[in-house]
């Protein structure tokens, strides 16, 4: 029996043409970068762009990844710990997402290899480790955003009073403002606090429990904390709204049934509502992760030296840096890879998140 195919109409052709154009439009820059990373400098620098038929080389990657004459051993150790933590977290999330364990062991292995030592990046400045900064900032932003967003989203989904609506509208308003508008106020605010810490001497107090080695003075500017706080703040309206839209889909009877079954309100939330919400949490977490991992402007302004990877890579291409454009391209491709892998693994949840409403009771 022959399967009937939909007739090919001009409108269909036009639609596909537009979609193909859009895909090309968004993928071209990345392909260009990927190409650059495997070209020789002479082809990259040539006046007429060499689009195909060029000689390829892995030199940029080799230089970037393996040319480590002076390794920062602390950085390596920290990196290994971070990778272990990421692998564990991925595994836990994966179990919730009900992918098999082999999937996640494989994914973790790929991420480990992909990220294996960015010697050049952490040699660029002896004291800081941009990769660790990126991972710490991303994870902290995710965890804090989700914690606040889950509680606030749940509350606002269940509470229908007028003040709840006011909070939501205000949050939406802040979401509507351009993020750029917040950068300078955050900077000056942080500077005020730092000035106060310095002038009163509070910043140089020694707190026994937070007396970390290498940290002499307490400050906000130029710390990971500054980046995390700023990113959590600008991202919070989004997480609250998105999680709230998922919570609304969970029937109220769910937690009522749990409470009748003998659960406290908190137990009902933890044991019944949160497990239903996992797809939503993963989707929201991924959006937050993308925001934090890719952030450039906030990091550049709030942390002049505590760079994360995007800022560090930009610095490779300009200024006094002797690195070549091909190495910068190799770096870009390398730091994009883990994100691409995570997105592929979780794309099912991302799509659900975009079309919020997949949680059915």
């Amino acid at each position, binding site marked *: 029996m022959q399967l009937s195919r939909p007739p090919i109409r001009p409108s269909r052709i036009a639609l596909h043409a537009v979609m193909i154009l859009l895909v090309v439009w968004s993928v071209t820059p990345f392909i260009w970068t990927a190409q650059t990373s495997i070209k020789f400098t002479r082809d990259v620098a040539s006046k007429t762009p060499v689009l195909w038929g060029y000689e390829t080389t892995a030199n940029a990657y080799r230089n970037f990844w393996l040319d480590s004459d002076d390794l920062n051993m602390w950085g390596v150790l920290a990196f290994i710990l971070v990778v272990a933590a990421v692998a564990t977290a991925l595994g836990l999330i994966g179990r919730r997402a009900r992918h098999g364990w082999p999937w996640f062991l494989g994914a973790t292995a790929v991420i480990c290899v992909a990220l294996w030592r960015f010697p050049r990046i952490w040699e660029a400045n002896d004291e800081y480790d941009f990769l660790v900064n990126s991972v710490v900032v991303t994870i902290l932003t995710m965890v804090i955003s989700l914690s606040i967003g889950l509680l606030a989203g749940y509350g606002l989904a269940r509470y229908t009073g007028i003040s709840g609506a006011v909070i939501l509208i205000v949050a939406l308003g802040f979401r509507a403002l351009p993020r750029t508008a917040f950068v300078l106020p955050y900077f000056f605010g942080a500077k005020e606090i730092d000035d106060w810490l310095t002038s009163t001497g509070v910043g140089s107090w020694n707190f026994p429990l937070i007396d970390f080695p290498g940290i002499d003075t307490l400050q906000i500017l130029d710390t990971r904390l500054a980046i995390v706080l700023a990113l959590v703040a600008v991202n919070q309206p989004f997480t609250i709204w998105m999680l709230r839209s998922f919570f609304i889909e969970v*029937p109220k*009877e769910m937690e009522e*049934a*749990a409470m009748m079954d*003998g*659960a406290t309100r908190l137990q009902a939330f933890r044991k019944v509502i949160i*497990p239903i919400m996992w797809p939503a949490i993963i989707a929201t977490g991924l959006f937050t992760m993308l925001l934090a991992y890719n952030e450039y402007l906030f990091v550049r302004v709030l942390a002049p030296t505590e760079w994360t990877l995007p800022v560090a890579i930009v610095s490779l291409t300009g200024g006094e840096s002797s690195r070549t454009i091909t190495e910068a391209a190799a770096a870009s491709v390398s730091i994009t890879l883990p994100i691409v892998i995570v997105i592929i693994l979780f794309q099912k949840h991302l799509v659900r998140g975009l079309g919020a409403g997949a949680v059915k*009771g």
Partner: protein
Amino acid sequence: MSTVTLKNLVKDYPNGFRAITDLSLHLDDGEFLVLVGPSGCGKSTALRMIAGLEDITSGDLYVGDRRLNDVAPKDRDMAMVFQNYALYPQMTVAENIAFPLKLRRVPKAERTAQVLQAAEILELTEQLDKKPAHLSGGQRQRVAMGRAIVRHPALFLMDEPLSNLDAKLRVQMRADIAGIQRELGVTTFYVTHDQVEAMTMGDRVAVIKDGVLQQVDTPESIYGSPDNVFVAAFIGSPSMNLFEASLTGSDEPDGGYSLALGDQRLAVPAEVVADRPSLASYEGRPVVVGIRPEHLEDASVAPDHPDDQRLDATVDVREALGAETLVHFNLNAQSVDSGDPDALDDLRDTGRCTARFSASSQARVSDQIRVNVDGRKLHFFDRQTHLAIRG
């Protein structure tokens, strides 16, 4: 095992709406009480107040001797079955049923045994490893029941548990739930808008309207002697026919009365009057008269009927149901609004009367027929208060 007592329960919402007014009820140990009423009458609110999911504005709730007004839902020892079942989608059937036991830290071996036992009662043994998403509506309903019975609670609360099932399954589950309740002997408070469920399942039926309790009694009494017009119209399907009529003394020596129903007259048998001495005070005044459809019969089927207990009518609609035939006609009398918001009566249709004839009736649409009225089964209500005229 326990008795439940509601004393003058009141529920006010912050916007000033009073959902429940002075609700007092008592459930005996092991009793199955059905609270029935039209949509929006406050019956679910009453149930949720007992469950602890809604605050009690005033009044007292007792289970046994224990006052439960300020006790958290989890400590009330009640199990609830929700209209949409509220099964936990991430858990298997077994985990769903075991959840209340798990929260009570029942040891695993004992838990498994009790889940198996509950599954056996509900014929869910095959389904234990499935997720709710892979179950049929009836199976989901039974899992919800399983979650309730596994804990042996003091009280079952059921909030329209059958309304999401198709008609055939509903009839079966109706019998099943009643059977399980009898077997377990757990006091049960059941809420429904379906008067058939109320009549078939309950030991007693409580009819509620606009948050006010109308009548509590056995199904037979509710049906046979409704306290007011609303209960009369709400219980029974098709509904009782209710008309305004005026009562006049009769010339006959036995002292019966006669009713002016539209432009026709209907004799009220002496025994009916004897049962209701107070009817005398209504002489010469309008009353509300109620006639159940089954107390009307095609005169051609039953010719031996007193001639003064007959009405003339023209058939408007005929619905042959096989075992019986429903015939609608117009009596040219003023219909009475019972106050049921779900009723489809509209005013253009005033005077419409439904009769349940035996299947042998030959009445066809637009036929002129005579209708026997079983005068002994007439119901009388006060026109102002809508209360039954008795005693």
